[in-house]
């Protein structure tokens, strides 16, 4: 006797219970704390904050724990929380020139005012598994030097600008209101502020692959890392009632300025052009990828031919959001049997027609052979 499937509710409740069990794992092992995640898996926390576009280390750590370490799931959880928060307004532009810098490198100059600062980087570590991390071996205190307030850490783009060899930073019309793609429907072509917002929220892996593709000839890029700087900047917010800006606190960001060769056009002289990346926390890979893609997406503005995926704004922006992508890819596991039934019926009918016409063809051949 056939009984229709029932009990979705109980199945869901049981699945959630099992999920909680698997998340907790072996009960004899202490559970991981939010402080441990925030403190010791800091780069995971940074990525979740960046792609969720919500700067809150402990909530990001909570999301990572809740998601069992699945980064996109954690980003999703934090975004779903972010969307319920009231929006008070737009901060003043961050002044990254006055960043309290922890790492700063330039690939275009051997030395420059303020110097190169390696900071906390994996760059020259040998990727050998480190047995000392199997235990809780003591870790040395870092050697830090006091910042020298006298030395201004001018940005590399300003050095080039002194010679007028790089395009201006670009300006939006005076009456331009900063866009927010989480609050307004998307429309193509986008203004650059919205595009940068989309890229800053975009999936690191997707942007990495696109940025990489521009280096391999899909998009004609000749990039140099003008500068990457990581450090803390102050966020200021204008309060109309007060008539001045108040500080909301400091956040860590990674900024990348990519410098690209540009041969010039009828209107513009030969000069370097800019690609820009800025992300929450410490993520050079993301900010570099972002600046490569930002530059590639300026093709139309600079009068370049659009030949590659990374230059195609609608393609890039429509597919850069991993919460959207994962939702739609994974929705394929939802039941589709109603539509499948319709397709099944069609394929069966077409197959019958096909067999019938082949049979008819065979009969004709037989007749011809017999004659």
């Amino acid at each position, binding site marked *: 006797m056939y009984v229709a499937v029932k009990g979705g509710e109980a199945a869901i409740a049981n699945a959630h219970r099992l999920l909680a069990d698997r998340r907790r794992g072996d009960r004899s092992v202490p559970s991981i704390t939010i402080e441990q995640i925030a403190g010791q898996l800091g780069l995971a926390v940074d990525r979740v904050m960046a792609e969720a576009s919500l700067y809150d280390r402990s909530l990001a750590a909570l999301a990572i724990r809740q998601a069992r370490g699945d980064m996109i799931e954690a980003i999703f959880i934090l975004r779903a929380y972010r969307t319920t928060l009231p929006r008070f307004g737009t901060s003043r532009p961050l002044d990254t020139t006055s960043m309290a810098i922890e790492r700063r490198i330039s690939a275009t100059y051997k030395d420059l005012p303020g110097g190169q600062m390696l900071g906390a980087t994996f760059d020259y570590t040998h990727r050998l598994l480190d047995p000392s991390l199997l235990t809780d071996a003591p870790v040395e205190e870092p050697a830090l030097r006091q910042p020298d307030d006298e030395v201004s850490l001018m940005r590399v783009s300003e050095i080039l600008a002194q010679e007028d060899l790089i395009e201006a930073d670009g300006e939006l019309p005076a009456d331009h209101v900063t866009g927010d793609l989480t609050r307004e*429907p998307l429309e193509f072509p986008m203004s650059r502020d919205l595009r940068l917002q989309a890229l800053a929220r975009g999936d690191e892996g997707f942007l990495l692959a696109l940025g990489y593709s521009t280096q391999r000839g899909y998009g004609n890029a000749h990039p140099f890392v003008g500068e990457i700087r990581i450090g803390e900047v102050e966020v200021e917010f204008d309060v109309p009632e007060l008539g001045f800006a108040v500080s909301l606190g400091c956040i860590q960001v990674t900024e990348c300025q990519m410098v690209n060769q540009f041969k010039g056009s009828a209107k513009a002289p030969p000069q370097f052009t800019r690609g820009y990346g800025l992300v929450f926390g410490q993520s050079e890979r993301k900010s570099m990828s972002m600046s490569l893609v930002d530059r590639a997406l300026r093709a139309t503005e600079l009068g370049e031919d659009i030949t590659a995926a990374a230059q195609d704004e609608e393609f890039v922006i429509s597919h850069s959001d991993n919460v959207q992508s994962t939702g739609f890819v994974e929705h394929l596991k939802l*039941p589709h049997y109603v539509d499948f039934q319709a397709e099944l019926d069609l394929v069966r009918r077409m197959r019958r027609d096909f067999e019938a016409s082949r049979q008819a063809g065979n009969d004709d051949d037989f007749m011809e052979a017999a004659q």
Partner: protein
Amino acid sequence: MSSHADLATYNFAYLDEQTKRMIRRAILKAIAIPGYQVPFASREMPMPYGWGTGGVQVTASIIGADDVLKVIDQGADDTTNAVSIRAFFQKVADIAVTTKTDEATIIQTRHRIPETRLKSNQVLVYQVPIPEPLRFLEPRETETRKMHALEEYGLMHVKLYEDIARNGHIATTYSYPVKVQGRYVMSPSPTPKFDNPKMHMSDALQLFGAGREKRIYAVPPHTEVVSLDFEDHPFEVQKFDRPCALCGAEHVYLDEVILDDKGGRMFVCSDTDHCEDRRADGHVGELLAKPQEAAE
């Protein structure tokens, strides 16, 4: 850092009032321009994109404390995602829910239109994955928007005609495009084309929400919804060559259920509420008519 104690305080029906107003304005314009896709600033919902976030945002924006909600997926109330969405609204809006089509004031659906004719006090909310009927012919939004603006739907007719040239008939079985009130070509969402005729001159308001694609569109009641076709190849719906094995219903959409690994299968109503109603009224299908034989 924020205070984490009050993380879980949400407004009635989850969405904040500002978001609801934005969606409500989009819904009203959608009704005023039948079949036109209104862009809206879709919010990140606490369920994945592609899993009904558009439908959920529409429902959350229209639902009131006195509404009675029914949620179906594939025609059934007990599919897991339908259960999950229904539970969501019970939790965030504390509203009454039902599986009875007749009792519902709002029916949120994925992939089916109920068999029972809808009434004027009901609203049907569709979950829509790809709202743009021209998307698979032209992936660019910038281009498809122009086509709608100019009422330039030749591409769609060419596609359907190529089907006929190749197969002798139109090989589209679901998401079958319709024209609304003689103007906009619209996707009915991935409902089987079997359901298309139910959209035409419906007594109920039909709202469509696409969360990931950020579009809302609508068909007001008593509005012409015509499936695209050709004079010599008129639109036809699927026909099933047997009735429902449980309730004996004909002219309804059936699910194929595989019974064993030897090719045994049966066909039962996709609309589970309709099937239960019929059985309660004493209708009996082939399988239930001979339980003795089946047991022997």
